[in-house]
């Protein structure tokens, strides 16, 4: 560059036709990326709401955890010391074990009779119908979040669903100290139980929310 050019006034850039086409295509590209980014953000927000649903479960179960062990706990369905719990346990021992909900499908109340107080089924019914949990909304379907046995990525109907599993200790000497199994309605909640709360994200992949003692 010669020294005289340093003294020249700054020239404005003249745009050719191809420059304008390039700039317009850049605007389009930026708009598309922004739009896609917004879509990704909205999906991520839905996943956040799903996680919040799971956290609401965790909060409720944790809050009730200590209270429900007291004999005078007002919600009989979830009361550990409910008189019906023992009967439920005996009934569960006598009857063949209730079939767990099919993997990936919503747990439906398959038993004709109402669950007995002090069992998981009764407590779940109470939670789903009489607590703040009943107002939760699955952001993907705009309906109440389903309680499912597990998240299955192949099944898109499970997006935004909630998985509640009990953590069961394995026998001494096992490779893993605990294993997760799904609840059945007749499970007694007489004693403290370890629960794992998981939610299914937009691809129906599991996201672990928390493990707690109920």
């Amino acid at each position, binding site marked *: 560059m010669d020294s005289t050019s340093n003294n020249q006034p700054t020239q404005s850039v003249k745009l050719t036709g191809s420059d304008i086409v390039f700039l317009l295509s850049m605007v389009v590209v930026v708009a598309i*990326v922004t739009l896609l*980014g917004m879509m990704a953000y909205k999906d*991520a927000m839905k996943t956040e709401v799903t996680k919040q649903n799971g956290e609401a479960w965790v909060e409720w179960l944790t809050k009730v955890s200590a209270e429900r062990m007291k004999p005078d706990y007002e919600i009989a369905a979830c009361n550990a010391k409910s008189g019906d719990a023992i009967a439920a346990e005996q009934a569960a021992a006598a009857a063949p074990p209730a079939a767990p909900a099919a993997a990936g499908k919503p747990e439906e109340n398959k038993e004709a009779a109402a669950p007995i107080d002090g069992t998981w089924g009764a407590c779940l019914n109470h939670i789903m119908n009489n607590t703040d949990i009943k107002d939760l909304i699955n952001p993907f379907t705009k309906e109440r979040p389903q309680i499912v046995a597990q998240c299955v990525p192949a099944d898109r109907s499970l997006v935004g669903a909630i998985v509640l599993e009990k953590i069961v200790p394995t026998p001494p000497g096992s490779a893993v100290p605990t294993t997760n199994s799904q609840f059945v309605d007749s499970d007694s909640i007489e004693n403290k139980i370890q629960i794992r709360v998981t939610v299914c994200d937009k691809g129906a992949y599991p996201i672990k929310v928390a493990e707690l003692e109920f």
Partner: protein
Amino acid sequence: MEQNKSYKLEDLDVQSLLGNQDIVADIASDLPFRKWLYSWLLDPNIPGNYQKAVDKWIGLLIVANLFVLVFEHVPALYEPYKGFYHVFDIFSVIVFTIEYAVRFYLAPEDEEFKTKKNAHVSYLFSPFAIIDFLAIAPFYLKLLGIPLDLRILRFLRLLRILKLFRILIPAYADFVKLNQGRTFRQRVHALVFPSAFGGKMQEIFDAFIGVWVLLSVFAVIMESMASVSYILNLQFVILDSVAVGIFTIEYCMRIYSCVEEPGFKSPIGGRFKQAKTASTLIDFLAILPFFLEVFLHHLIDLRFLRVFRLARLLKLTRYNDATAILVKVVVREWPVMSASAFIMMLLVVLTASLGYLFEHEAQPEKFENIPQSIYWAVITLASVGYGDISPVTPMGRAMTIVLALIGIGIFAIPAALLSSAFSDQLVKEREALKANLFEMLKDGHIDEDEANFIRQEAKRLHLTTEEVNALIEMVQRENEAAHNIKELPIHVIAERPEIAVEHYKMLVGQIRQLSMLTDTTKFEQTAKESDSLTATEWSLWQSIKAKQN
């Protein structure tokens, strides 16, 4: 634009030629204190002072402030470390306040303000000083008890980013000056491709892309940690979208302006050729997973594509010449390497088959079939030896001993080939640089263009100042010897053995250079066709050429 300089051969200063940072600033200690301090800290025209270091560290602190401001919006990252954020804020404000005060104090020494009536006041109302003030004002307002909404406070702190303009504006001005009279596309080209017109702005652009590459790759790695991903999922999504936006714009800019590159001139063919280059393909792969996932996630599960975002790290290879040398070496040695790979494959299949033959009956669950045995064969031949599958029969063990020993040699061949070819390539490129230096130093001085070339080559070949110095000295000596010898008649040279040896070396050196610079195929073809070389001359040429290769 830097003034055109000419470096005389006799007083050649390699340090300044290479633009190295370890030049000692020439600042007199008996200067008035203010002038002395300005010279050391802020004067951009004194090489070797601390001005660049001050700018760099202040720039880094500004970027760190930006990150901290982003992290503050994430409760999971903010709440447990509130104290740290507060300490960092105080530290930043102290540094920025000192900077502001020093600049205020030194304003009368600054070229921009020294001619004004009141340099201090002029400084206070200059745009940069206002930005500097805004960067620290919120902290003091809060300290004085003036109630400020947290959002306003954070917004005001965001203004600290404007301090980066102190680096950006001069770089932009330089860029505009360098590109005066050039078209829009040429300017885009100057920004994204290394050229003489890019200046500091191109470096900043590269650094900006580099930072985003590292950020996005770091985010991908952190995303794989469930506990981190649970808390920061939303932030990762935003970061990825922004990164893809930046990389997409960069990709479009490269495709658009590549026609300014030599060899890519055709509007369509040139762009297609550019799109097919390894670095541009990497750029494309860096953004592809995002678009595929957004468009197709309803149809197929494309979560696995996320891991390919790590390919963005390959974008950094553009800024590292060693990768280009390595690719060149692999391409050059490909025939030998493919032969070695063929032998390896043969050995693996043979080993696996023999392993299956000897061990299948003894361990049917481990050596179930030949494909399963291939895993054992590779692990054994590569000397990894996990031990999960091992032979138990005497024949199997005997075979393993032999094959493991062969494997050491066979598997080491490609590594040895690559390593020796890599070092050969470096030697060759240094020889080429030496040949170029020889040419440059013929006229007794190095002009600015030649100095630029030496700088670039020294950087590309990772040569230290001492190495360049030694190379220049060697070329100087050879040049001088050649000069002196050339002036002597041949019979005088022949009479003095020491000069004759030097003369002989020079002639051989010239043949060596000739073999490097000329198209040897055409040379040999012409020599054969015209039958102009004797058998001795031909064999001498072949011998020197073979050594060269």
